[in-house]
C-alpha cells in the first residue's frame, strides 16, 4: 500500500459537497481530480465515483460552492454542484433485495444438489437425512428472503386488497410447512427446492425492478442543478459574503450579477435589468424590470447587476407554490395500478379456488386428507406466478436499458406502462418544442474580420445572446481578433478598441419590439443587426407526424404570448392554447382526462411542473428545470425531440412483450395445472416446469434489446 498522510480526527466532521463532473473519461482524470483537489488548501480529500461521474469533496467550512467549482475548474474540468443522490435515491431497497437474492441463490443451489440425489434414488435413512438438511437450509431462507413478499402481501390483505404477493406468500409458506411435515413423517416428496427456487426467481424480478428505478433516479439526480445554491449577500458595512440558499433570510440584500439565477423572491432596490422569466412563465422574451419591481426565485438576470431585497424565502416563494400544486396533481399517478397487480386481481382468486377445488375433489374421490393436501399444494406451487413475477420487470428493464442508450431515462416500470397508454400529447413551447435558447439567424452578415471582432466582444459577456453568438462563431471556426479595452456597459452591451477603432456589440440603436432578441454589431464598416430566435428542436415535425401515426393527437399549451406561439404552431400544424398559467395547464389536462383521454405531457419549465405531475405520463428534456425533471416520468437528453417518439414506441413494444409473456405464462399453466390436479406433479417436474417457464419469459423479454433502434 502507498503512504497516506494521517489526518487529525477533528477534520473528519467537515462538510461534504457533491459535484457532477461529466468531463472525466479516463484513469488519468480520476488521479488528476483527486490529487489536484487534495492539494488545494482547505480541501481534506476528494473521492471520485467514476460510474456516476461525481466527485465528493470533504472540505473546510470556509470554502463555498463557487470556490470549489473554481478549484475543479483550475484542473480543467467543468463541475456542477449536485444534490446528494443518496438523499433522493436510497439504494437500500436494492441492496436488501440483492442480499435476499444471494441467500436464496445459495440455498437454491445447495438444496438442488441434495434434491438431485433424492431424485436419482436415495432411499430410507439417506433420503431422510437429505430432506432434513434441505429443511435446515430452506426454512431460514424462506424466513429471510421471503420477507419482502410476506410484508407486501400482509399490507395488501390488511387493506382488503390482493396483489401478486398474496398467492406467492401463501404458496411459499404452505409448501414449506407441508414439506417439513413430509420430512417428519419420512415421506418421499419434499418441495423445499421448489419453494426456494421460486423465491430466487421472483427476487430476481424484484431486484431488476428496483435497480431500474434506482438507476434512472440517480441519473436524474445527477442532472439536478441547484437552481441557485445561494447568493452573494451585501452586509451593512458594504462587504459581501456568500450565503447558502437555505440560510437566506428576509430583508437581506442579494447582489445578483448578470447571468445569475435568483435564490429567493425579492424586490429590486438598485439597478435596472432584463429578466428571463421563461422558467416560471414560459414566456420566451426577456422582461425589463427596475427598482421597486418584484422578481422571483429561479428567474435569470440577463443584463446588468442588480441589488435585490429578499422578501420571501423557501416555502413562501412562488416556486414553492408551484411545488405544492405539483404535489396535489401527482396524486392521481400514485393511484395507478400496475399491470402485474391488475393481473393478480384475477389470478390470485383463480389459483386459490383451483387449489381448494382439487383438495375437495380428491377428498370426495376417497383419497386421504394427507394426499389431497399434497396435491393441493402441488397445484399452488405449479401456479405460483414465477413466470408472471418475471414477465413484467424483465421486459421493462430491457426496454429501459435500450431507452437509456438513446438518452431517455425512464424513472420506473409504471412509467413505461402509462407511457404506452397515452392517446393525446400536449407540448409546452419554450424549451420543449423549441430549444429554449436563442440562436443567431443571420450570422452570415458578419463578414471577414467582423466575425473575429464580434467573437472577441461576445466572449467578454455572459449575456445569453453573447454566449449564443460566441458558440455559433466558434463552431464556424472564427478566431477572436485582439480587441483592447473591452468593457461591459450595463444596459447597453460590450465595447472595445481595435486598432484605434471603437467597436461594440450591444442593444440596437432604434429599439422596437424585436429589440430583445437582436444585437447590433458596430465594427469597421456599417453597423450589422444580428437577430436571434428560439429555434425549433430538430425533428419536431417528424415527431408530431410520428405520434399521429401511432394514433396520438398533439397540441400546444404554452404560457407564452399568442404572437410568439403562432409561428411554431403554424409550422407544425398544431392547435395551440396560449398565455396559460400553471393552473390553466392543469385544467386543460383535467378536461382531456374527463373525456376519457390519457394525456402525455411534454414540458420543461417550472410552470409545467403541475401539468407534468398531472399528465397520465410525462416527459421532460434534460434542459428542464429541476421541478420539471422531478415531476416527469422520463427525462430525455440532447437537442432532438425524437426521443419523445422513441419512448412512446418502445413503451408500446414493451407492453406487447409483457402481454406475450403473460400469454406464455398462462399457456404454461394450462398445461401444468391439469397435471398437478391429476396428482402427477413430483418435485422434479415442478422444478423443471418452473425454471423452464422463467427462462422462456426472460428470453422473450430480451428481444426488446433493439427496440429503441
Amino acid at each position, binding site marked *: 500500500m*502507498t503512504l*497516506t498522510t494521517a489526518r487529525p480526527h477533528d477534520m473528519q466532521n467537515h462538510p461534504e459537497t457533491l459535484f457532477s463532473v461529466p468531463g472525466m473519461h479516463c*484513469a488519468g482524470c480520476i488521479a488528476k481530480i*483527486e*490529487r489536484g483537489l487534495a492539494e488545494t488548501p482547505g480541501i481534506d*480529500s476528494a473521492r471520485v465515483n467514476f460510474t456516476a461521474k461525481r466527485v465528493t469533496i470533504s472540505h473546510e467550512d470556509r470554502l463555498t460552492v463557487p470556490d470549489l467549482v473554481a478549484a475543479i475548474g483550475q484542473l480543467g474540468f467543468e463541475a456542477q454542484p449536485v444534490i446528494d443522490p443518496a438523499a433522493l435515491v436510497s439504494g437500500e431497497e436494492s441492496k436488501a433485495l440483492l442480499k435476499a437474492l*444471494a441467500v436464496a441463490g*445459495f440455498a437454491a443451489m445447495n438444496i438442488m444438489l441434495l434434491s438431485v440425489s433424492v431424485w436419482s434414488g436415495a432411499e430410507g435413512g*439417506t433420503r431422510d437425512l437429505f430432506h432434513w438438511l434441505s429443511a435446515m437450509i430452506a426454512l431460514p431462507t424462506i424466513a429471510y428472503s421471503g420477507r419482502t413478499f410476506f410484508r407486501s402481501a400482509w399490507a395488501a390483505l390488511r387493506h382488503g386488497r390482493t396483489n401478486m404477493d398474496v398467492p406467492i406468500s401463501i404458496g411459499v409458506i404452505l409448501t414449506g410447512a407441508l414439506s417439513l411435515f413430509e420430512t417428519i413423517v419420512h415421506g418421499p416428496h419434499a418441495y423445499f427446492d421448489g419453494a426456494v427456487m421460486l423465491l430466487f426467481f421472483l427476487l430476481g424480478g424484484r431486484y431488476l425492478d428496483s435497480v431500474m428505478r434506482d438507476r434512472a433516479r440517480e441519473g436524474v439526480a445527477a442532472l439536478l442543478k441547484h437552481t441557485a445554491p445561494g447568493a452573494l449577500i451585501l452586509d451593512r458595512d458594504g462587504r459581501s459574503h456568500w450565503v447558502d440558499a437555505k440560510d437566506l433570510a428576509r430583508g437581506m440584500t442579494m447582489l445578483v450579477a448578470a447571468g445569475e439565477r435568483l435564490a429567493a423572491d425579492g424586490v429590486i432596490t438598485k439597478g435596472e435589468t432584463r429578466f428571463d422569466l421563461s422558467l416560471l412563465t414560459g414566456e420566451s422574451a426577456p422582461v425589463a424590470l427596475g427598482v421597486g419591481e418584484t422578481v422571483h426565485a429561479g428567474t435569470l438576470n440577463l443584463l446588468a447587476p442588480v441589488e435585490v431585497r429578499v422578501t420571501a424565502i423557501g416555502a413562501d416563494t412562488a416556486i414553492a407554490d408551484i411545488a405544492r400544486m405539483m404535489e396535489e396533481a401527482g396524486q392521481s399517478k400514485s393511484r395507478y395500478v400496475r399491470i402485474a397487480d391488475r393481473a393478480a386481481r384475477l389470478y390470485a382468486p383463480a389459483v386459490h379456488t383451483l387449489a381448494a377445488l382439487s383438495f375437495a375433489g380428491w377428498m370426495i374421490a376417497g383419497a386421504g386428507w394427507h394426499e389431497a393436501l399434497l396435491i393441493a399444494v402441488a397445484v399452488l406451487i405449479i401456479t405460483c406466478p414465477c413466470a408472471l413475477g418475471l414477465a413484467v420487470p424483465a421486459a421493462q428493464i430491457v426496454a429501459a436499458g435500450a431507452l437509456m442508450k438513446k438518452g431517455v431515462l425512464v424513472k420506473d416500470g409504471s412509467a413505461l406502462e402509462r407511457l404506452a397508454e397515452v392517446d393525446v400529447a400536449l407540448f409546452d413551447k419554450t424549451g420543449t418544442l423549441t430549444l429554449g435558447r436563442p440562436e443567431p439567424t443571420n450570422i452570415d452578415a458578419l463578414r471577414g474580420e467582423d466575425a473575429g471582432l464580434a467573437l472577441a466582444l461576445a466572449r467578454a459577456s455572459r449575456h445569453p445572446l453573447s454566449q449564443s453568438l460566441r458558440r455559433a462563431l466558434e463552431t464556424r471556426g472564427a478566431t477572436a481578433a485582439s480587441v483592447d479595452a473591452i468593457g461591459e456597459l450595463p444596459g447597453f452591451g460590450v465595447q472595445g478598441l481595435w486598432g484605434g477603432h471603437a467597436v461594440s456589440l450591444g442593444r440596437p440603436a432604434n429599439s422596437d419590439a424585436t429589440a430583445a432578441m437582436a444585437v447590433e454589431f458596430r465594427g469597421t464598416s456599417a453597423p450589422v443587426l444580428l437577430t436571434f430566435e428560439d429555434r425549433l428542436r430538430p425533428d419536431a415535425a417528424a415527431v408530431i407526424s410520428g405520434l399521429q401515426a401511432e394514433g396520438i393527437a398533439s397540441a400546444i399549451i404554452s404560457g407564452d404570448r399568442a404572437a410568439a406561439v403562432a409561428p411554431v404552431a403554424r409550422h407544425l400544424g398544431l392547435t395551440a392554447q396560449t398565455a396559460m398559467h400553471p393552473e390553466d395547464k392543469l385544467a386543460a389536462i383535467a378536461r382531456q382526462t374527463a373525456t376519457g383521454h390519457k394525456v402525455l405531457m411534454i414540458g420543461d419549465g417550472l410552470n409545467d411542473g403541475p401539468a407534468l405531475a398531472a399528465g397520465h405520463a410525462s416527459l421532460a428534456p434534460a434542459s428542464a428545470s429541476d421541478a420539471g425533471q422531478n415531476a416527469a416520468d422520463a427525462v430525455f437528453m440532447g437537442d432532438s425531440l425524437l426521443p419523445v417518439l422513441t419512448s412512446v414506441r418502445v413503451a408500446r413494444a414493451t407492453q406487447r412483450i409483457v402481454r406475450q409473456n403473460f400469454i406464455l405464462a398462462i399457456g404454461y399453466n394450462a398445461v401444468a395445472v391439469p397435471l398437478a390436479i391429476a396428482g402427477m406433479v413430483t418435485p422434479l417436474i415442478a422444478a423443471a416446469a418452473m425454471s423452464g417457464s422463467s427462462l422462456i419469459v426472460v428470453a422473450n423479454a430480451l428481444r426488446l434489446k433493439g427496440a429503441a433502434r
Partner: protein
Amino acid sequence: MTGIAFLIPIALGLGLLGLVAFFWSLKSGQFEDLDGAGMRILIDDDDAGPKA
C-alpha cells in the same frame, strides 16, 4: 457413507463462505463504482497520491 459426513459439511461450508464474502464486499462498498475500480489500477501511484 462416511464420506458424506465429511463432504456435505465441506460443500455447505464453502458455499456459505462465498455467501459471506459476497455480503462483506457489498457492505464495504465494492459495488459502488464498478467502472472506476477498473480504472484505478491504471493510476501510477509512485508519487504516493492521496488515498481517500
